[in-house]
């Protein structure tokens, strides 16, 4: 390892930002995948993996991903809730890989909710 210069310190700091944001609770958007037994059975794990990959590919470091239990609408699983700071939270239902990617692109990154997949808007904030 070569000796560090000031720029290198900043680079290391930058590369760790995602991890630290997660630990410090600093984030712009929070995505909750509902992973009750019903959710898992309906494929919530795939949704989670899709999101993990998407975050990795986009090199996003201000989005945190979390899981929660059953949201009470077992028939409409897999579900997730997207909370972008300063916007109403949105619940999405009947998800699959493609829908998830689209929601990630347009809502999580772009800040525009995808109305066609949404169940409701404006309920249950978790922050």
């Amino acid at each position, binding site marked *: 390892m070569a000796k560090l210069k000031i720029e290198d310190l900043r680079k290391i700091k930058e590369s760790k930002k995602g991890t630290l944001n997660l630990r410090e609770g600093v984030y712009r958007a929070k995505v909750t995948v509902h992973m009750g037994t019903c959710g898992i059975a309906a494929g919530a794990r795939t949704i*989670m993996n899709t999101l993990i990959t998407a*975050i990795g590919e986009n090199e996003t470091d201000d989005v*945190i991903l979390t899981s929660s*239990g059953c949201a009470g609408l077992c028939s409409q699983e897999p579900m997730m809730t997207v909370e972008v700071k300063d916007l109403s939270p949105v619940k999405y239902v009947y998800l699959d890989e493609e829908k998830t990617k689209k929601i990630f692109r347009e809502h999580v990154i772009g800040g525009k909710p995808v109305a066609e997949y949404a169940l409701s808007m404006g309920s249950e904030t978790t922050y």
Partner: protein
Amino acid sequence: MEKQRKTYHTNLMICAGTGCVSCGSFGVRDALIEEIEKQNLSHEVLVATTGCNGFCAAGPLLVSYPDGVFYQKLQVEDVPFFVEEYLLKGRIAKKHLFVRPEDKEAIPAINDIGFFSNQLLVTLRNRGLVDPEIIDDYIARDGYMAAEKALNEMTPEEIIREVTEAGIRGRGGGGFPTGLKWKFCAGASGDQKYILCNADEGDPGAFMDRSILEADPHAVLEGMIIGAKAIGAHQGYIYVRAEYPLAIERLETAIAQAEEYGLLGDDILGSGFDLKIELYHGAGAFVCGEETALMLSIQGQRGMPRPRPPFPAHKGLWNLPTVLNNVETWANIPQIIFRGSEWFNSLGTEKSTGTKVFALTGCVNNIGLIEVPMGVSLRSIVYDVGGGIPGKRRKLKAVQVGGPSGGCIPESLIDTPVDFESIVKTGAIVGSGGMVVMDDTSCMVDVAKFFLEFTVEESCGKCTPCREGTQQMLHILDRITLGKGRPEDIDILLKLSAMIKSASLCGLGQTAPNPVETTIKYFRAEYEAHIFEKRCPAKKCKALLKFEVVPELCKKCGLCFKACPSNAITWVKKTVAVIDVDKCTQCMNCYAVCKFDSII
């Protein structure tokens, strides 16, 4: 590492301070990693180790981010259920949540737990958030930015001015202004100077320095780099006791990583400034925490203090100008340089700025490592952070502050603000930060004896007042607790105290009588009960215990009879129990089981 960070959605931070490690936190970590792999979650969940979380009594601890859920008392056998419940199903594993003692309510979020929310972290700002063995974690939290600023943008005078204006005072016990100490040393003539870190923490019940070193070793190294630049030193030593193997291991790792990154060694960060830091293992003599003794010990000689002046700032290690600061002081320095003296000044009180780390132990619900701003009341520490006294029938009696050099502050002074001046007014000292809470079962004579036994053992023997004086005081205390106290004993103790304090060579002797003096000052009646009535009000001094049953209070239940292991109690149904004093072994079983306080 670059790749990993993108993928984890959850970070499980396992506490790996000495407290949790001794409860088996490494085993829990390994089990978690194994179970997470088994459930195919290893690309989603990161298991990381951190330094001491602070809530040592409830270890092994785990904090999960981003949720910020605090889990306590995790054991290896709990891991499969925990992983299934929390990571697979996304439910909080209730079994391991913190339960508030007052109302038995389980609190999931770490920030809602009084123990954590009532603290202010400056020195311990990285605790629980960084892995102390990964330098990049430290850098991510603005680590080494202050060193960079000091090395490339500030002159030594500017650094000293900043530290002086911050008003920080030595956290090792003395409370001497750090900026002033540096100024003396910077002004001393000579090219060769030394920068030292005192990690010879020896007070019974104190573990502040150990925890800082285990949780955030780089903060100490960074502080030393800044100090070295300020005084012009190029060689540093950390004097750490050999009893702290984990702290030593993490320091060694930290130094190696910093050297690899060029943050220690030659031409640090391209600034042209050189500094080498080495560890020196102390063998555990309490007196080696005294600065001149510590320096002799590094020189390979027997650790004994010498008279000052000359002060170490002029003639220290190998008779060359030296600055020695305590671990906690060093860990504060990067913050002062990075955020400025004004910010630091805004914390704490006018004459005691900043925060202080305390090791809170004894009869208190939340035992552990805490950091609070200077000037908060003892009451707030004991009740808000500490969660109060366990046991419904127990009452707070006193708080022992400052270890064997400190004193006992009685319940009546519980609103005393904790800062250097106010604590000294009570007769105790802030010291390095040991804080032992005592309830009404503690005998103050016994407490004074305990601390004096420690100083007698640890006195180096060089000067007579400390060597002989403390020994004599201990003899007197011994005889008081054995019921052989004489009427003049209290006066002799006070006379000896004054003499030892004024005539001893170093801080050890000068403060050794403090525990005795303060207990006499605030609990004189207790001493008098021992001496004149041959009675120990707290029921601690065995030789003075004589138990009897108060017939009016006795409900004739027979619990004491069943509890007595030496057949000293006679009881038949519906009669008052009687204790045979000759057979009684003072085991206190009957006293403890009696529900009606009828045994006295």
